[in-house]
């Protein structure tokens, strides 16, 4: 299964689950990355990290290492 960190520029995906063992998983959930939501990779920073997603009508930037805990269908 893909993770959100592997999405390409402009690609969308539906969140399948959040890896609960990741230390940032709670914050990831709290800002609105929940299963069933569609997210789109909007922008990447200069070194391809962090990356910005649209989720629930807002733009959230997260590090790639943290985006890895978002599993995509």
């Amino acid at each position: 299964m893909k993770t959100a960190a592997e999405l390409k520029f402009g690609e969308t995906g539906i969140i399948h689950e959040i890896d609960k063992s990741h230390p940032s998983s709670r914050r990831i959930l709290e800002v609105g990355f929940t299963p069933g939501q569609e997210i789109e990779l909007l922008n990447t920073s200069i070194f391809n990290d962090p990356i910005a997603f649209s989720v629930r009508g807002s733009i959230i930037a997260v590090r790639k290492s943290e985006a890895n805990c978002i599993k995509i269908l």
Partner: protein
Amino acid sequence: MKSEIIEDSPLITLVGPPNSGKTTLFNYLSGKNYKTVNYPGATVEYSISKLQKKFNFEANILDSPGIISLVPNSPDEKVTIDSLYSHPRFGIPDLVILTIDASQLSRHLLLAKQLLDSNFKIIIALTMTDLLQRKGYNISTSELGKELKCDVIKIDGRTGNGIEQLVKSIELNLEKIKALGNNLPKQIHNNFNVEYLLSSFNDFELIEKKVTSKILIEQKQINLNKANRQLKVLNNDLVKNNYLDTTTLKIDNILLHKIWGIIIFFIIMAITFTSIFWLARPLMNIVDTSFGFLSFSVHNFLGINWFSDFVSNGIINGTGAVLIFVPQILILFLILGLLEDTGYLARGAMLVDKPLSKIGLNGRSFVPMLSGFACAIPAILSTRTIPNKRERLLTIFIIPLMSCSARLPVYALLLAFLFPAKESWVAGLALASIYILSIISSTVMASIINKFKNKIINAEDNSSFILELPAYRLPKFSVVLSNSYHSAKIYFKKAGPIILILSSLIWFFTYFPNYNPKINSSNLSQEKVIQLQNSERLSSSYAADLGRFIQPVMTPIGMDWRVGVSLISAFAAREVFVSSLALIFKVTDSEHKLQSSILSEMRKAKIEGTNKFLFTPATITGLIIFFVFALQCISTLAVSRKETGSWRIPIIQFFLFTFIAYLFTFLTVNGLRAIGIN
């Protein structure tokens, strides 16, 4: 602050996610003028005030740092959450007003649910409904209120729309609470686990669909919409990306572009720091001329005696030498304010996260570092938004190296010495390079400290960068202007008295004990006599005694005791360096312009007992280097103590930075001399 509140009246706490309009609402309710910023985490301390008189009832309101959940992730969030359960001074709030951004409903409802589940009495203030409306959606507050079982009121803290209803609802709720007795809130953080979050968000999606409707133009379509809603087949993209601001997406494609993004980032930074010099020039000239004229007239009016010297030199020149630079400080605050208000700062933080994380910092260190260019004290406070403790301590550690506005007067004077006024753009470029130097030195320092992290800063945590990028907004110029006026006023109030007191002290120590030196005045013009008296008085003064004591330290860096005394007095506040120079080099002359007379006195000055010029390109550059590194600010040390929790870090900062300053000044002065620049 005590007078700001009314004892024994109800406490209303404003909470809400970052950027949801708390401070804007707080300002409207209290009639205050706190800074609102388009960056999550601009408020890191609570502020409290009483309700404005015009609302006709008494209550205290508390503004708090933004939170997105009742489980804290960083110290600024902890401040808010702790104050909800029991504020250290004001106890438990009687009523909580939760601001929720209407265009972020499903995300922001989390806090509403957690607060309600914990038994808080809340009213929801729905903000940004104007933005939602422009996108063609409407939220029914009555339906949302029914879903959540609390009052929901649409407000706009910028215009005051809906505030009347909000105040009415506050009154009613307070009455109800009084009648029923307030149930204590329950601290049930452990219940807010992942399962709780997942099921809550499911509910929120349903609620959002239920209460949101598309604004349709034709009646028929409204009916159709209603029908759809009853069948719950309202199309799904209502909740999707429709709310995303398309302009923001377009701007981000440029500003976060891999190549352009970085180029624009540097251009923005360069413009910021060069404009401080040339934009302020005309204003500075006015201040400069007025002080020069004032000092000259007073001196003429009072004649030649100690009192006249005290007023014209000690007070007018001493403080004026610093006040000349207030326009520059004002412009610095103005530009930083404009940047804050657009929403660019969050992008800046994202762009620099990767490079900063390599040296043990975080993208969230960017805004504290940038505000370090205005003043280290709020900058150190704003590091509370950094969740990871080690990254936060490291950011605090290097903030004193950022070139704060108190150094600006010093640099401006020294650069004006190096580059004549006609070439003020060269001075502007030189200033920009000083700022770049301060950025480089702070990052190098960070990476070195990071290498020894376990020796100096020991704390380990999950390093994280999750940051909302707010929609871009055109900055409201009037708001930014009044904010920078207030910042400059605070600067003035804080620095003004210190400068006045120290100027008087320095004047005293340079004028006494030998205040009326005997000079063999035969065959000399009156002007010459005064000049000889001045230098005789100074060289037998208390300041000179101190100066001779520190002379051994000053000789290696090519300076004499007079600069030494100025450097020591600058440890109280950096700007005092300038007034101290003005006093020691006795600038009262007929030139009518304070700054140019300081400069011409400096150009004439010789190292005591020799025939060599004291201020040369080499020593001036050396002084600039000294100010880049030295930690000459008592308040910074005090805040660093408070925010790091012990004296350890401030003591290391003080000795390390001052030692480095001296070392690099030594290397600069002697290095420049070695290559023939004197």
